[in-house]
């Protein structure tokens, strides 16, 4: 049929199928701003359009239903590449992070302002109610609407999006436009899905319906004979090698235990077969035609089941060690049927008993410490499985170009993708190019090579362009989740509150494969224990294989669960001692000049080093929170059903992996005096490219517009470890600093020769002018001379950053929660985050990182949990039943304040900012709930049902 629309003021008549949705039609016709985060469930709002002046989700409207209608997409507001009043306001308020939801937000606000030119907060919340955003925490959207609204009458209106820092610097510590914001706010091509060639084929997966089973036989003949089918892949025709999907430095501290397709499936959703066909529907149909006979095995569905005597064995193949010896008493001989498990070095594992990795260590004499204590408490905390839920799911476009494999990837780790894919396929790295596109949310899930190995192999073997995108259910069950952890904390203290001993026992569920199986649980310890000064501390960590969804990296990398356990236990100890919670924290917390001995036992795969801390901002943070919350005098609700409580915690993170990782950048001075910065860093929406651009502009006396950043392209940019472990600003940012300083040295040397003045007399002044005592020369002139072969060589700087220095950001989070003691409902009345990220390089963007991190953690604490049935099938693998926060779940008073303590190694004194933000919500909310209603919440999420059970109101 033909559908007639007025699209962005232009009449169009387009053919469509009866069942084609408006979203599908618009995308097919090249309207790329219409995104998709929920596969047509109507739950995410990213496909929003304004249809006949109303904001609607185009995924649940048939194109035919729109006949004769007016349709407005964000392209309407991006004419001539200018920005509308709303687009500009979103950039000014630092609301553009990954940008995947941004076009929908633009439309929602335009539609709102069309109805109400000075909207209230209630109206703003209502207008944005249908748009899911996982990055921003929504808080800054209110400012964006206010700015846009004010500019309706006063076009010159402006307001500061954040406080400024470092008055001695021109760009650093000041708000500047995020350098990819314009592209994203205009809804232009930026993501993997926008790079797919018209003749690309589609790859679809046949997923396992069983949690644990052997594939007895698999018959692909019928599928291969179906229309449009090009190839079918199974364990019978894929490379016979195992690898890890963890995007970590090599050799990885994760077992190589995953084959592209295995003859054994280990979780519901595991790979059974993949079909490449000319259309997505053909590939889906052919998947259904693959005949599989399974030998179903009893699954392992919990940590308790995994460690039980006689438990089913998730990995029964041979266990090999590339270096080192197997732990004594562990079995290594395989059953001759399953794939091998290969450890690069020992992780104290015993896979045939489902133990993927373990570690234990500590300082002092814990038993003596407990014996000396006046009070000893022991509590167990459980954090359930949560999903990263990037709104752009895992996606890749793979093709062969010039005899090489090219991967357009949505990844946090382009170089690890290159290495792992090349080894999985069996081709050298010089035959693989990875181009990191804009990433529509990563949050750790895209630190793993979840789709690139298979798509790369299929493209390499067939020569066809291969588009492979997880649907939302696959994203839930087959990408990466936060490990389930059960953490027992034992604390001993004197009557005055001084800790005498700490013991943490942590059991984790890594799922069917061991990516990050040791490092994530270890981080739960290494980012919580060092917050407390105690001479006697010990930990035991064990990570078990199960047949549930794969676990992996997720923002915070284990730290949120460790923080939940230890900080809540500390509060429980305070209650036991009859002490104020903050007083107990104050007595034991890390402070300026403290020697952190526990770090000796917390090395990342090597001997750790005790550190003497420089300045620590925790004291000021606690003081600010104490004052803002009038600590000790909580409000009383007018409604007897609602009880109000306060909670506070201290938190920390790291800034990259000292001694393990490295980052590089190259910077080229172009002939007109502008810069091309080639950064290895992988900006996944956080603003890392803006950090590196600022470094270059700051050091070379230029404006931000003078710097173009190309990042994360393995052919073009130099190596970078990737975006994980809170390393972006610290490592990639510092590499850019070093590259700019290298170029500056060369520029000054060249200018000295041109001007005939000593280098010591020269400096670079805005805008790109080298000034001496007698003369001056522009960067453009110097660059032009280099291209003409005059005086000096090409002006290019190179920077490498690696360090053994550990930089810790700290934070204190305060919560005021109201608990309805009849219903168990919880309202977050106030959430204050006081955080130190050193110098905030982009203050408003850093605020956004914190708001977003906190709100994710609020979701984990109150709503989110993957739920499995008795057969290991996740029963809520969709946004309809896995609830992530919307704008309605934002705390009523949501405040972030910086308490900067500059780091001597960090770029301009900067440290990491994002991941730490997730470490406070769970314990702070749990403590506030207890303060309100007397119930200790030891399992997250703290659903009303769990709260009522903890209160004894529900059995």
């Amino acid at each position, binding site marked *: 049929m033909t559908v007639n629309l007025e699209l962005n003021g232009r009449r169009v008549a387009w053919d469509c199928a*009866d069942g084609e949705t408006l979203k599908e039609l618009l995308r097919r016709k090249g309207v790329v701003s219409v995104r998709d985060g929920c596969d047509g469930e109507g739950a995410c709002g990213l496909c929003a359009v304004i249809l006949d002046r109303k904001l609607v989700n185009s995924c649940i409207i*048939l194109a035919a239903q729109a006949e004769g209608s007016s349709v407005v997409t964000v392209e309407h507001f991006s004419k001539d590449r200018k920005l509308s009043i709303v687009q500009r306001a979103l950039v000014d308020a630092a609301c553009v992070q990954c940008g995947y939801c941004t076009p929908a937000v633009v439309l929602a606000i335009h539609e709102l302002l069309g109805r109400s030119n000075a909207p209230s907060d209630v109206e703003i919340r209502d207008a944005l109610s*249908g748009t899911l955003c996982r990055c921003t925490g929504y808080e800054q959207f209110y400012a964006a609407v206010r700015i846009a609204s004010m500019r309706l009458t006063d076009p010159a209106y402006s307001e500061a999006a954040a406080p400024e820092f470092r008055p001695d610097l021109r760009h650093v510590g000041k708000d500047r436009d995020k350098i990819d914001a314009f592209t994203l706010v205009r809804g232009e091509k930026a993501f993997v899905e926008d790079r797919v060639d018209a003749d690309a084929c589609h790859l679809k997966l046949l997923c396992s319906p069983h949690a644990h089973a052997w594939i007895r036989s698999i018959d692909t003949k019928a599928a291969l004979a179906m229309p449009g089918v090009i190839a079918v892949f199974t364990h019978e025709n894929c490379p016979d090698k195992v690898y890890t999907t963890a995007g970590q430095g090599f050799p990885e501290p994760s077992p190589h235990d995953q084959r592209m397709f295995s003859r054994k499936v280990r979780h519901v959703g595991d790979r059974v077969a993949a079909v490449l066909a000319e259309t997505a529907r053909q590939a889906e149909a052919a998947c259904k035609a693959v005949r599989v006979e399974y030998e179903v095995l009893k699954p392992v569905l919990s940590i308790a089941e995994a460690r039980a005597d006689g438990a089913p064995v998730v990995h029964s193949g041979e266990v090999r060690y590339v270096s080192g010896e197997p732990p004594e008493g562990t079995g290594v001989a395989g059953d001759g049927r399953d794939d091998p498990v290969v450890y690069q070095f020992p992780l104290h594992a015993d896979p045939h008993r489902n133990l993927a990795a373990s570690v234990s260590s500590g300082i002092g004499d814990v038993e003596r410490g407990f014996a000396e204590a006046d009070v000893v408490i022991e509590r167990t905390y459980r954090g359930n499985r949560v999903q990263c839920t990037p709104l752009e799911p895992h996606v890749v476009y793979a093709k062969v170009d010039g005899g090489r494999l090219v991967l357009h990837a949505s990844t946090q780790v382009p170089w690890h993708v290159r290495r792992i894919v090349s080894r999985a396929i069996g081709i050298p790295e010089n035959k693989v190019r990875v181009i990191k596109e804009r990433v529509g949310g990563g949050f750790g899930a895209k630190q793993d090579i979840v789709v690139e190995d298979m798509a790369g192999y299929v493209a390499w073997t067939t020569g066809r362009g291969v588009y492979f995108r997880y649907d939302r259910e696959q994203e839930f069950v087959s990408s990466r989740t936060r490990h389930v952890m059960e953490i027992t904390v034992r604390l001993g203290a004197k009557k005055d509150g001084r800790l005498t001993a700490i013991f943490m026992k942590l059991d984790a569920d890594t799922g069917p494969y061991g990516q990050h199986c040791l490092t994530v649980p270890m981080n739960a310890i290494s980012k919580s224990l060092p917050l407390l000064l105690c001479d006697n501390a010990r930990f035991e960590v064990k990570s078990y294989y199960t047949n549930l969804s794969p676990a992996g990296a997720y923002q915070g990398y284990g730290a949120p669960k460790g923080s939940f356990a230890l900080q809540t236990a500390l509060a429980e100890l305070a209650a036991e001692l009859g002490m104020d919670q903050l007083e107990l924290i104050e007595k034991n917390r890390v402070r300026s000049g403290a020697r952190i001995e526990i770090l000796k036992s917390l090395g990342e795969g090597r001997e750790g080093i005790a550190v003497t801390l420089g300045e620590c901002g925790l004291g000021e943070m606690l003081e600010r929170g104490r004052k803002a919350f009038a600590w000790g005098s909580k409000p009383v609700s007018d409604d007897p059903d609602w009880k109000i409580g306060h909670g506070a915690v201290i938190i920390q993170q790291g800034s990259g992996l000292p001694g393990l990782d490295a980052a590089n950048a190259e910077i080229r001075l172009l002939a007109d005096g502008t810069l091309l910065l080639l950064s290895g860093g992988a900006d996944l929406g956080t603003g890392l490219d803006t950090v590196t651009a600022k470094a270059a502009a700051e050091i070379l006396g230029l404006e931000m517009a003078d710097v173009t950043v190309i990042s994360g392209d393995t052919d073009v940019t130099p190596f970078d470890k990737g975006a994980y472990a809170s390393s972006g600003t610290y490592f990639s940012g510092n590499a850019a600093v070093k590259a700019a300083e290298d170029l500056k040295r060369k520029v000054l040397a060249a200018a000295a020769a041109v001007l005939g003045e000593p280098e010591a007399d020269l400096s670079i002044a805005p805008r790109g002018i080298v000034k001496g005592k007698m003369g001056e020369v522009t960067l453009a002139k110097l660059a032009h001379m280099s291209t003409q072969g005059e005086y000096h060589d090409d002006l290019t700087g190179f920077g490498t950053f690696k360090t053994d220095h550990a930089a810790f950001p700290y934070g204190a989070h305060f919560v005021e929660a109201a608990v309805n003691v009849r219903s168990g409902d919880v309202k977050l009345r106030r959430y204050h985050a006081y955080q130190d990220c050193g110098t905030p390089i982009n203050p408003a963007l850093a605020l956004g990182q914190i708001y977003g991190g906190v709100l994710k953690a609020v979701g984990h604490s109150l709503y989110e949990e993957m739920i499995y049935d008795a057969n290991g099938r996740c*029963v809520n693998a969709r946004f309809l039943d896995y609830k992530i926060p919307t704008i309605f779940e934002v705390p009523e008073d949501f405040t972030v304040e910086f308490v900067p303590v500059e780091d001597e190694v960090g770029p301009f004194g900067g440290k990491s900012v994002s991941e730490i933000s997730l470490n406070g919500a769970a314990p702070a909310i749990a403590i506030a709930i207890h303060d309100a209603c007397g119930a200790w919440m030891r399992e997250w999420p703290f659903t009303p*049902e769990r709260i009522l059970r903890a209160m004894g109101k529900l059995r």
Partner: protein
Amino acid sequence: MVTKFLKPRDAAEALSMLASVKGAVPLAGGTFLLSSQFRDEPMTVVSVAGILPSGVSRTGNTVEIGAGATFQDIIDSPDAPAVLRKACLGMADRNIRNRATAAGNAAAGKSCASLPPVFLTAEASFEFAGGNAPLPAESWLASPSGLITRIKLVFDPERLYGYERWSRTACDVSVLTAAASWRLSGGVVKDLRIACGGLSSHPRRFPELESLFEGKPLPKRSDIEAAVSPFLSPIDDVRGSAAFKRLRASILVADAIMNAEAQP
């Protein structure tokens, strides 16, 4: 998955199409029918948008809602009573409210649908295309059939009306809903109507609860909760255990009764 889209000129033709194509279903806003949960089911749809009335009006005590009125249309209408607007606002996602229709919400056949509990406590009746006799909402919800054109509700100025819902997050689907209407006469509760969603296969009135309080002085909230709880039989599912839902629904019923207000 929609395999055939039919666009009738009027309600009569829509009825004819629905009758002549086996399995054909009427399509209004589509927020339920077109969601991906039906992606694998071949479907013929008959588009009724634009051919059914969509206005909201009030004549005396009677509020008339066109079957094609969206949730947002109802919220925006000055003729919509507050309790009805509250029920519509329970669907917190504006994008959905801009498409989801009043009749579609009833016709989707969902146990936890937002609006039917209000319909049931406001003496709602459904009118149909093709001249079929109007039916009380309660009868129709128990055995749906026919193409709804209008919903008529009666809001007696002597009565008080309340509505409550529970969902996990604001934009979640309603997990449990409760509506109540009653009047106070001689110090006792009279003509109490209680309707709930999420507790049975479809939203329905609960006469067994109504009779607990009929003709008696208004009890305390906690007494209502305790009294109704044994009569509620929700199921365990991903949204909550039966025990929790029973407790939560008891609270909703108590609040719907106690928070009820006149609808001027």
